[in-house]
Structure formats: structure tokens, C-alpha cells
């Protein structure tokens, strides 16, 4: 018999919590599945709390407060409703069914209503089966990552930089577009200065170094390694481990290494779906026998294989210890130049620092003086089809992620009439950049009544892709749950000729698998 579903319930002090209390006093029977967190108002509930609950094992999350119109704080509950409406859509991208996140209203005297809500939700969750996010979405990667031959042991014992020698610098790219390589060249005159000051020991995009050259270096011989790109293949994990071992300082360079970047949006699909789209089902693909990367293929007397795709994209910091981060897609010349000066100088910044100002973009926005005293979004506009003014994007009803995004971009996008998309990532201490901005933007939505507000929230374009554009893989829920409830099987183990499992673009997560739940 499967365990009872666990519901983390955020209850407002004045209505839902009182209703729960009253239900207890009245000895009303309802399932013991409720784990209550009291807040003063449902308006206090951050989307990040909801994501955290799912990540840490909740099967459902209930947000319950006063009926609209009865809020002790006028309309804090409507802010909760707007956030809930946007967040539910983002959860679907991770394969989390809408029924797992419920917003409900129960007045202080409505003990029976409260008990009914809990009973109903518990039954719906029983029918869905356990969410088990950690097992079904996160653990899969851990099997794959053990493929990497290098681990971190012995990393502390490394020689100090020899005085008098030019610092040795390495540049390498993992899952990235190459824009970060261009960002180095974009230093212009600064680039020539840099080449005069350092010895480049690895830079595949420009110089002919091989992996074996790096392997031949003593551990810790590279002073600073700049590694851009996310980790999506076993080979990229190997390179990350190798450069970590060989470098005194390892720098995550650019949004993909920092947060997974745009590459991380692929985590909204299962690995099998991605492989199927790329190697089998796309109309332009001709793949006889349908082998996938990782499947050894014999050709011209050689055994060939491609690196294995990991079950999800990982930011660099999840596979190795990262000393510093240079953010941006790509990092701006000013940020790169400033970071180089700090890293090649003395003293070093505090370990783990993101080398860009810890203030949001709004503070440096050229449009900041056009922000109205009270921003209200009553209708949404689109960049391509709306007549826009050179004023605060949010006030015009466009999603601008600047409020949640670190400065450092010299804001090129805003100056070109483009709202911030968030590539510099969140400020220190913000665990999930997407959740933070989703909450911020949804809090601006205003409409007459709950229904109209929900309709407006439903029109917010692609919440997962918009708010987590660069940080999906670094979020609290960084991957889609597997419908079968099992960890990802290594792709190499699949029979090469077998047709791939049907992979619709957004598979519904089916009912609970009794075998795996047992």
C-alpha cells in the first residue's frame, strides 16, 4: 500500500488557519496528509516556497486563504491568485500536474469546507500517485555523472603559482553557442593586453591544443581556467573534471556555465524525447537502424561512439566546485575586463563570488526615471506587435526581467528597445531567479475580480521559458519528472534498432505505477 500523499499547506492566519483549527476542535475527520505552514496572508507565499516543497518531497501544495473580498489585507489573496495562475503553468513544463498545486478559499468559520478541500485534494493526489520529484527528476543524473573518471580528491594539494612566470590561462567550451568565445575577443585592445600578460595553455577555438596536452600538465598547473557552456554530455563532464583538477581557479564563464543558460530549457523535455527529435523523428533526419549517441557503431573497421547525453543539462557548479562566476549571455566586455583584473590581481575576491555588481538592473536602467509611482499591468503587450514608448517596459505591460537580474550588461538590450531577459542571473542569495521574477511580475497584474485576474495571468507568455530563460537548469525544479517513475536508463543500453518510445511533445504524466510506488 502506497504512503499517504503529503500536502504542504500554506494557510493564512485569519481564515484558512482558523478554519483548520476549527475543523480540529469540531473533530471533523479529514486526511492526515496536511503539513501546515502558517503565514499572515496568502500574499506572503513565494512561488519559491512551492517549488521547494515539491523538490523536498511534497506530493501536493495547498495555498488557502480568505475568500476574495474578505482578505484581512484587502487583496493580498488576489496577488496569491495571480502568482498561482502563472506558476501552475510553469509547473506543467516540469511535468507537474495542475492538481498538485491548489489555491483555495475558506473562511474562518468554514471548517467543513476546509476539511472537504483537504479530503478532495488528498483523493486527487492518491489518484495521481506520488510525485517523488527527487527520484523521478533529479536522481537520474547521478548515475550518469559517475561515468566521469576524475573526481575531486587531492585537489587541495596543489603547487602555488610560481613567481615570475606568466599566469597560465585556459579557455574551454562545453554546451554553448560560441558566443562566450567571441566575448573574449570582444575585449578589443584589452584582449591584446591580456595575451601579453598570460600564457594560454588551452583554447581550442583559436589554438591547436589537445586533451592529452592538458592531461600531461601537473595538477593545479593552470592558474585560471575559464570554462563556458553547460554540462549536457558525459564528455563535457569529463572536461569539467579535468580542468578542475588541473586549475588553481576554475571560473564559470557565461550564463550556460553559471545557470545552465538557454541550453537548460531542454530540461523541460525528457532525454529520450530530445534524442528522438534530433536523431529519429525530425523530417530531415535519415538514420538507418536509428542508433543514438552512445551506441557503438562499426564503420570502416573502426568502433565509433559519441558521448552520451546526460538526462538533464547541469550548470557547471553542479559537477565541479566553481571558484568564480562571470555572468551574462555573453558576459559584457566591461564585466570580463573587470573580472580578469580581479582574478590576475591580489587579493582575490571572496571565493564563490559572481563577478558583477550585486544590484538589479533597474538601478542602472536608462528608463528608470520613467517608472510610474505605482506600476499596474492591466493588459499584456507584445514587443513585436505593440506600439511602444521608451518608458519602463513593465509599466507598458511587457515582461522585463530586469528587476530580478544582476547588473553588468551596460544594458545593451534595454538601449536597443528590448526588455531584459535575465542573462546575468539573480542577485546573491536568491535561490531561484525564475521563481523570484515570476512572483514579481505576477504581483503587478491587476484586474477587476479573481476571474479576470486569472484570465490576465493566463495570457502571460510561456512562463517557464520567459522567467527561467537562462536559469531553468539551476532552478529548484530543474528537470521534467519522468512519467514512468523510474530513473533514466543509460541510452547505450537501449537496443540500437528498437524504435524509440513514442514521444509526444508534452506527454501527460500518467497515473501512479504501483510497482515503483511499492
Amino acid at each position, binding site marked *: 500500500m502506497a*504512503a*499517504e500523499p*503529503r500536502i*504542504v499547506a500554506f494557510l493564512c492566519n485569519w481564515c484558512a488557519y482558523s478554519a483548520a483549527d476549527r475543523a480540529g476542535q469540531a473533530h471533523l475527520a479529514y486526511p*492526515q*496528509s496536511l*503539513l501546515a*505552514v502558517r*503565514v*499572515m*496572508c496568502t*500574499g*506572503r*507565499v*513565494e512561488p*519559491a*516556497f512551492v517549488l*521547494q*516543497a515539491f523538490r*523536498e*518531497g*511534497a506530493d501536493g501544495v495547498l495555498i488557502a486563504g480568505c475568500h476574495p473580498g474578505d*482578505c*484581512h*489585507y*484587502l*487583496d*493580498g489573496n488576489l*496577488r496569491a491568485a495571480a*502568482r498561482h495562475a502563472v506558476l501552475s503553468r510553469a509547473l506543467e513544463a516540469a511535468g507537474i500536474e495542475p492538481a498538485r498545486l491548489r489555491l483555495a478559499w475558506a473562511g474562518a468559520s468554514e471548517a467543513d469546507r476546509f476539511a472537504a478541500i483537504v479530503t478532495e485534494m488528498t483523493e486527487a493526489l492518491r489518484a495521481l500517485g506520488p510525485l517523488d520529484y527527487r527520484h523521478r527528476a533529479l536522481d537520474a543524473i547521478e548515475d550518469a555523472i559517475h561515468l566521469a573518471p576524475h573526481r575531486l580528491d587531492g585537489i587541495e594539494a596543489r603547487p602555488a603559482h610560481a613567481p615570475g612566470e606568466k599566469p597560465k590561462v585556459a579557455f574551454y567550451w562545453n554546451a554553448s553557442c560560441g558566443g562566450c568565445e567571441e566575448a573574449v575577443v570582444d575585449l578589443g585592445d584589452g584582449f591584446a593586453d591580456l595575451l601579453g600578460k598570460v600564457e594560454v595553455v588551452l583554447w581550442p577555438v583559436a589554438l591547436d591544443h589537445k586533451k592529452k596536452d592538458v592531461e600531461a600538465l601537473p595538477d593545479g598547473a593552470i592558474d585560471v581556467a575559464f570554462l563556458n557552456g553547460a554540462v549536457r554530455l558525459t564528455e563535457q563532464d569529463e572536461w569539467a573534471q579535468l580542468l578542475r583538477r588541473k586549475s588553481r581557479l576554475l571560473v564559470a564563464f557565461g550564463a550556460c556555465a553559471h545557470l545552465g543558460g538557454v541550453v537548460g530549457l531542454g530540461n523541460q523535455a525528457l532525454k529520450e524525447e530530445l534524442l528522438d527529435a534530433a536523431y529519429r523523428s525530425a523530417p530531415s533526419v535519415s538514420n538507418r537502424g536509428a542508433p543514438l549517441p552512445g551506441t557503438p557503431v562499426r564503420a570502416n573497421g573502426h568502433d565509433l561512439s559519441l558521448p552520451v547525453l546526460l538526462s538533464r543539462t547541469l550548470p557547471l557548479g553542479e559537477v565541479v566546485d566553481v571558484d568564480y562566476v562571470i555572468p551574462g549571455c555573453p558576459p559584457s566586455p566591461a564585466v570580463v575586463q573587470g573580472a580578469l583584473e580581479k582574478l590576475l590581481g591580489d587579493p582575490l575576491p571572496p571565493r564563490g563570488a559572481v563577478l558583477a555588481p*550585486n*544590484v*538589479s*538592473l*533597474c*538601478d542602472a536602467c536608462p528608463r*528608470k526615471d520613467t*517608472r*510610474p*509611482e*505605482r*506600476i*499596474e499591468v492591466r493588459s499584456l503587450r507584445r514587443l513585436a506587435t505593440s506600439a511602444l514608448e521608451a518608458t519602463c517596459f*513593465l509599466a507598458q505591460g511587457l515582461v522585463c526581467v*530586469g*528587476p*530580478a537580474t544582476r547588473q553588468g550588461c551596460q544594458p545593451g538590450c534595454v538601449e536597443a528597445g528590448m526588455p531584459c531577459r535575465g542573462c546575468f542571473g*539573480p*542577485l546573491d*542569495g*536568491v535561490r531561484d531567479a525564475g521563481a*523570484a*521574477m515570476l*512572483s*514579481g*511580475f505576477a*504581483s*503587478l497584474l491587476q484586474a*477587476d475580480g479573481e476571474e479576470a485576474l486569472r484570465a490576465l495571468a493566463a495570457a502571460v507568455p510561456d512562463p517557464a521559458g520567459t522567467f527561467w530563460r537562462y536559469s531553468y537548469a539551476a532552478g529548484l525544479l530543474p528537470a521534467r519528472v519522468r512519467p514512468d517513475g523510474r530513473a533514466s536508463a543509460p541510452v547505450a543500453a537501449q537496443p540500437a534498432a528498437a524504435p524509440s518510445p513514442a514521444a509526444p511533445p508534452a506527454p501527460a504524466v500518467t497515473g501512479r505505477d504501483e510497482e515503483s510506488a511499492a
Partner: protein
Amino acid sequence: MEPGPVEGPAGVLSSYQLERMLHPDGPTGGRLVGPDGAPPRAVLLASAADGAPGGDLAAREILKLAHLVKARHPEAAVAVAGGLERSPELVAEADVLRAQGVELLLGAPGAIAAAGGRLEVQLGGPEGVRAADLVVIHAPPHPAAGAAALARLFRIDLTRAGFLSDRAASPFEPTATRIAGVYVAGAAAGPRSIHQAIRDGAAAAGLVLASLEPGERRPLEPLAAEVEAALCGGCGICAAACPFGAVVIERATGKASVEAVHCRGCGTCAAACPTGATGARHFTRAQIAAEISALLAGGTP
């Protein structure tokens, strides 16, 4: 408050124009005249404010005018359209009118056209077209021109119709707004009868006086939000989210700050803040996150 506009062919009057005409100092010395200068044989009165804020007040106004017209011109055929007498509060007054020979029609007024020297009014429902010499319409009044600017200045809301909203957190503070110390009384909040306006004014004055009691202390909310200025980018999202206008972006610093007197500690701003600068005392991010972890670490209940 401004009178709502009424348009139509000659012979269509607003309720205010009719009041003026019936006044002894008015343009006709208090005589009722049609567009041709002769006393009207048939007068139709109707409210265009049915269902709008102040609709009951409008209905009362129309019934009062019907009563005045009938008293002044008993020979005229007077009709009231729109089923106003269905309002339970107005049943008695409608009965009095009916006894005086005023016709009470159900259909609401629609298009009005001039035809053959008379006016033809399209009525809803089974009534069809009614002819009259004088048609009197009460249109919903508009907010005063400065209402929106005044609301912005005091950070209070406007109602859907554009009047100042007197919606407060507590029903025990009539005329209070969501901003502590700001009250809205009388027609600024929408159409009001004189009785209602006086009651509003007395309530507001009482609440203000009660708060000015010598020695009276204003309690501050211990849960009031706080802002860590170094992390604040001044995006204004917290200020927009606050139901009480207690968070403002300081002009001098460009950073958010919480007016503790106005903050009631709901934490809506803290949840909205995209940088973690705005926090809720005693319901901090770290506290709630630890609570969630602890609940879920406890294993299956």
C-alpha cells in the same frame, strides 16, 4: 461629482435640466414646456443608471421628479419607465404615484427619435414604442475631473466608475481608505444622497478626532516589512504589490522604504520582491524555508 450627459432630439432633458425648469427662478419660471413652447401632454421619465453605482439614488430621483411633474401638471399623462418601483425600498413611493395616475412601465429606455412633432422612445420588453412630448433621463453621474489625480496623490484606489474608493481593511471604519489617516466622504465616493453624505462626513470626522486624542499612541505593526537597501534596485514591484501603499520608492535614494505606520505586516511585498531586498519580519524567507524542510524531513505521516 459631475452630472452625466444626456443627449437626444429637442424635448429630451436630463433630470438636472428638469429640476432647473421646475424651479421658480428657472428659465420658464417653473412652468413645464415642451420643445414647441407649449405644456407637454405626455411626459416620460426614466433612469439610465439602473444597475450602475447609485442606481437606487437615480431611481429615487426619477420617482421624485414624476411626483413633482404630476403635482404641477395633473392634466399631463406621466409615465415612469424601467421598472424602478421593483426596488423594495421604493414600493411605497411607487404606490403613491400609481394612485395619482402615473403609469409605471417595466421596459428600460432605449433609442429616442423625433417623429411627427413628438418623441418616440423605444422601451425594452413588451412595452414597445411610447410617444411623449417631453422625455427626462437621469444619467449616471461622473466623477469630478480631478478625482484620479487626487487618488494618485493619496495612493488610494478608484472605483470602477472612477470615484474615490472607500474600501478599507476593516468594516468597522466606515469612510476609511486603505491608507491609514485618509478618509473619503460624500459624493467623492460616488453618488450619495444628502443623508448619506452627512453620515459619511460625521463618521470620517469622528474617526479623525478619535485618532487625535491627546496622549493617544499609534501602535506600530511588529510584523512590518523591512528593506535591505543595498539589495534594492528600486524596481517598484513591492510598492505596487502593497495593498496599503505603505511601501514607496524614495525619490532621493531610488530605493524602497516601508512606512511602518501604514504597514500591516501581510508580507505580500516580501513575496513579490525579486531580489530578496524586501523581507517580512518573523516570517522571513529563511524561517519559512526551514519550516518547509523540517516538515518534509519528518517522513511520511
